[in-house]
């Protein structure tokens, strides 16, 4: 059986996924609380409700960052 390795860049850190993961599953695997972050996939902000339906692809660049509200 052939394994497909998916290489992604999460906050500029290369990571390999052994199986296709949704953006939501990726955050869960990283123990990141979804309610406190926004997510940019390949330079586009992805609305939170779509995270469960988008799968990570090879060479995806994903930035996850905390919401900042101070002023």
């Amino acid at each position, binding site marked *: 059986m052939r394994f497909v390795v998916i290489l992604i860049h999460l906050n500029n850190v290369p990571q390999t996924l052994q199986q296709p993961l949704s953006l939501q599953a990726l955050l869960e695997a990283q123990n990141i*609380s979804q309610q406190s972050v*926004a997510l940019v996939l390949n330079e586009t902000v992805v609305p939170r409700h779509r995270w469960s339906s988008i799968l990570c692809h090879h060479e995806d660049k994903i*930035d996850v960052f905390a*919401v*900042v509200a101070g*002023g």
Partner: protein
Amino acid sequence: MSATAQKRPSLDDKDFIRYSRQIFLPEVGEAGQLQLKQCHVVIIGCGGLGLLAAQYLACAGIGSITLVDDDRVELSNLPRQLLFSEADIGQHKALVAKQKLAVLAPNCQLFAFAQMLTLDSAESLLAHVATANRQQSALLLDCTDNLAARHSINQLCIEHALPLVSASIAAFNGQLFAVDQRRFPAGGCYHCVFPNDTYAPQNCSNQGVLGPSVGVMASMQALLAIQLLLSATAPILDHSTKPQAGGVEHLLGQFWRFDAKSLQWHSARLTRDSECEVCAPSWNANTAQALKSVHK
């Protein structure tokens, strides 16, 4: 509206000298300076962001500015809220800011409200911006320090079809973006990025902040606001619009993050959430109407 306000605006000799460095820019010119004179900017929050943005905008020749904040000046504000001094401690920020800006920018008509902006009070508070907003010469700067206020302000901007320029900073992280339901509806709104159930772990009170990083964000916010006001008559955009050098499509629907440690900026494209609890329901009703009025 008063007879004075109905007068055709013009620049006198002193204005030409005062604003000469702006007028020299082909992107501004005499027409642009006159355009700024007819603009009305609402600034919610007179802390580190709001004060500096207000100072830049008032001194740049924005015709009217409304300042809204129910906070009072505190000693711990002084390292980054540079318009205030120890003598102002205990006084309402919005009222002190109005008084000081009136000296710095005598051409600017200033309004100050020492109260919280709520959805209930917003109608009367923003009534005097309505005319400018209909003429596409109004916008709102969100300079508040908490997520609840930011959510209320976004909802307000959606309901009033008011362009929103939002900046925030805590610790070494800054965020900035502009959304406009009339000119670039595909960019969505604040709730599309940060829905109502968002938890904000960072604010200046519990994370700390350096004054200059607040200044960077406030300067960018003011710069973005001026450019959006100058380009208010540009055509409506969608994601198929090809970016042109210096075009407004680079300004609307972009989300910038600033890392104040490495001094690096990152930008990403905003997208409208088709299931957004705030802008999606009003899309057909309000935005379509606003689009019609823009097309007229």
